[in-house]
């Protein structure tokens, strides 16, 4: 059978035999590969004074908006406008821009940066508002993401996810690292470094904690890690393997896969630790649990029917109902926060492909043309999916829109990068 911890493209043996390339994290770049049908053309003028700042605000905002698939950047090079200008919108209309962003970044006496911007509706000639932030140099990227969120929400009516965070794992040589990065993959901070594998990071719904599986004691053990303090606690270290943690939406419970009574089965454990309660009773392998956003279902993978498929059941256990019927190998379920979509990985003629199912109709769409997709995770606004894959011979983190039309590559130069998990909206 497959690896009992999780069904995944690479098992632990493969994890141990990866390539020895050290990752370079400053090289993330948006590579939009698709063409959307309705994209809003937007011009983002260089922010006045940003040349002296350590981060180029306009470039970050442009990349953010482009990656969302909802915007098409219009060239704004050479413009010398800022948020105080009353811009002549005629040239922007001629360039077919619907919106214009202007702003500035200036250094304050205390060393912080004052970032200001204003958004213009070019078509109607209207001022759509602006904001200002006084931030440290280290938070300039965050300020840029917040500007992107403002623009996104103003122009699409939905919340932006640019200031949210993504956790992922890299392997360089024999060093494993768990990173917490901005939604564009940049600004990564190491949460944990180990010479043994780290897998399955999972954000709590508050975004303050990460659960993950670490092999540092030479066997899979589940930890919960406080992101701000770096303190962590052991949640599951029972006989056999402890794996695949998933948070309940209220943050009180973790669903995990344990093999303490023989085969791999699902259990729940209080987030503070304690005695696990067994959820499933099957002769097969039950693993990869994930809660629905309303907390009413746990989706998981089981081979009780002879091949791994995705099932769901109430969070207290009970009769599981099979969800996937297309193909004979479906693993790694992820649920959209709006409850409408199920993303998962399907093995189709030997290739591992990211699929998305509309839960109300059961209709399934294949989203990628890559063949080694894994670990899908939804953005908190349910508009994008981040996943790991191999593209052009390199490991990569990608984002895709739910129609698969716009994809962006978040990965740096080579190295093993995988297991992304998209965190919640920042409170």
């Amino acid at each position, binding site marked *: 059978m497959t690896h009992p911890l999780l069904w995944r493209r690479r098992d632990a043996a493969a994890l141990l035999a990866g390539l020895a390339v050290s990752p370079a994290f400053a090289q993330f770049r948006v590579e939009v590969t698709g063409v959307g049908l309705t994209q809003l053309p937007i011009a983002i003028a260089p922010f006045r004074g940003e040349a002296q700042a350590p981060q180029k605000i306009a470039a970050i905002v442009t990349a953010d908006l482009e990656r969302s698939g909802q915007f098409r950047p219009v060239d704004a090079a050479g413009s010398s406008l800022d948020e105080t200008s009353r811009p002549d919108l005629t040239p922007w209309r001629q360039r077919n821009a619907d919106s214009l962003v202007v702003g500035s970044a200036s250094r304050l006496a205390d060393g912080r940066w004052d970032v200001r911007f204003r958004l213009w509706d070019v078509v109607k000639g209207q001022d759509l508002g602006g904001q200002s932030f006084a931030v440290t140099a280290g938070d300039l990227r965050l300020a840029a993401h917040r500007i992107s969120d403002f623009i996104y929400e103003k122009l699409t009516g939905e919340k932006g996810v640019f200031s949210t965070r993504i956790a992922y794992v890299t392997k360089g040589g024999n060093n494993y690292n768990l990173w917490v990065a901005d939604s564009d993959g940049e600004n990564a901070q190491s949460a944990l470094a180990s010479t043994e594998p780290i897998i399955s990071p999972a954000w709590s719904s508050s975004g303050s904690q990460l659960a993950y599986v670490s092999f540092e004691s030479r066997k899979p053990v589940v930890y919960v890690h406080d992101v701000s303090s770096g303190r962590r606690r052991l949640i599951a270290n029972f006989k056999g393997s402890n794996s695949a943690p998933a948070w309940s939406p209220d943050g009180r419970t973790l669903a995990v896969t344990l093999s303490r009574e023989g085969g791999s089965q699902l259990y729940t454990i209080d987030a503070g630790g304690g005695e696990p309660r067994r959820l499933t009773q099957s*002769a*097969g392998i039950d693993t990869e649990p994930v809660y629905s956003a309303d907390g009413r279902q746990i989706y998981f993978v089981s*081979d*009780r*029917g*002879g*091949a791994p*498929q995705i099932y769901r059941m109430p969070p207290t256990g009970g009769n599981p109902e*099979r969800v996937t*019927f297309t193909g004979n190998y479906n693993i790694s379920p992820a649920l959209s926060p709006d409850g409408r979509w199920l993303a998962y990985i399907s093995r189709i003629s030997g290739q591992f492909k990211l699929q998305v199912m509309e839960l109300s109709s059961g209709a399934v769409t294949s989203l990628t043309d890559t063949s080694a997709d894994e670990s899908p995770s939804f953005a908190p606004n349910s508009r994008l999916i981040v996943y790991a894959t191999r593209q052009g011979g390199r490991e990569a983190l990608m984002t895709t829109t739910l129609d698969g039309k716009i994809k962006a590559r978040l990965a740096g130069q080579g190295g093993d990068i995988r297991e992304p998990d998209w965190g919640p909206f920042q409170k």
Partner: protein
Amino acid sequence: MRSLYKPRAILAASLFALSLGAAGGAQAALFEDDEARRAILDLRQRMDAQRLASERDAEAQRAELAQLRRSLLDLQTQIETLRGEVARMTGQNEQLLKDTAELQRRQRDIATGMDERLRKMEPAKVSVDGREFIADPLEARDFETALGTFRKGEFPAAQTQFGDFIKRYPQSGFRPTALFWLGNAQYANRDYRGAITNFRALLQSAPEHSRAPEAVLSIANCQIELKDTAGARKTLDELVKTYPQSEAAGAAKERLARLR
């Protein structure tokens, strides 16, 4: 194992018996050497036999154990096979459940669609001019079409359509009403004689019809148009007499007053 001890016990007992005998023989010289030798040989023989027997036992047990081990392995394989079989059947069952649900849904959809389509073709109860009767959907549609044409004021077309209707559905529950509107269309088209014929046909076939008094009044109107004042008066008199409570009777009285 226990059987291995047995020969030794027997041997001990025999030796004990021998020593007893020897003790006795000191005085009585009871045992000759030959006798002793025979006894020893005998004992040896018996011991050999015992040993052979126990070896055979052990061999049999080893064979039995091997047999057991084989059948255990067999059982294990069978359990594995069964487990696989159960998984396969579980999967099949899940698929069947899903297929059944899907079929049920589709069947419901088809049934609903069919009902809707059949309803369009099945005769249904209709109510016209206070009368209830069963009519074919097509028949009802043709009637409504003709009435629609009349209401639009397209009287020649209405005359054709009502005329066709009466020919096509001679037994129709709509017939009296159709005759009434046909007469009216003809009146509008100045075909007064034709109109009178159809109003009379209505009166003859359904004298109690709610449109009957109006039909009589209409006949009188036709007669007036045809300058048959005497005939009109007679018709109006009949109307007042036959349908005294009707609205048309009131109109007839007024008309009579003017005609006199």
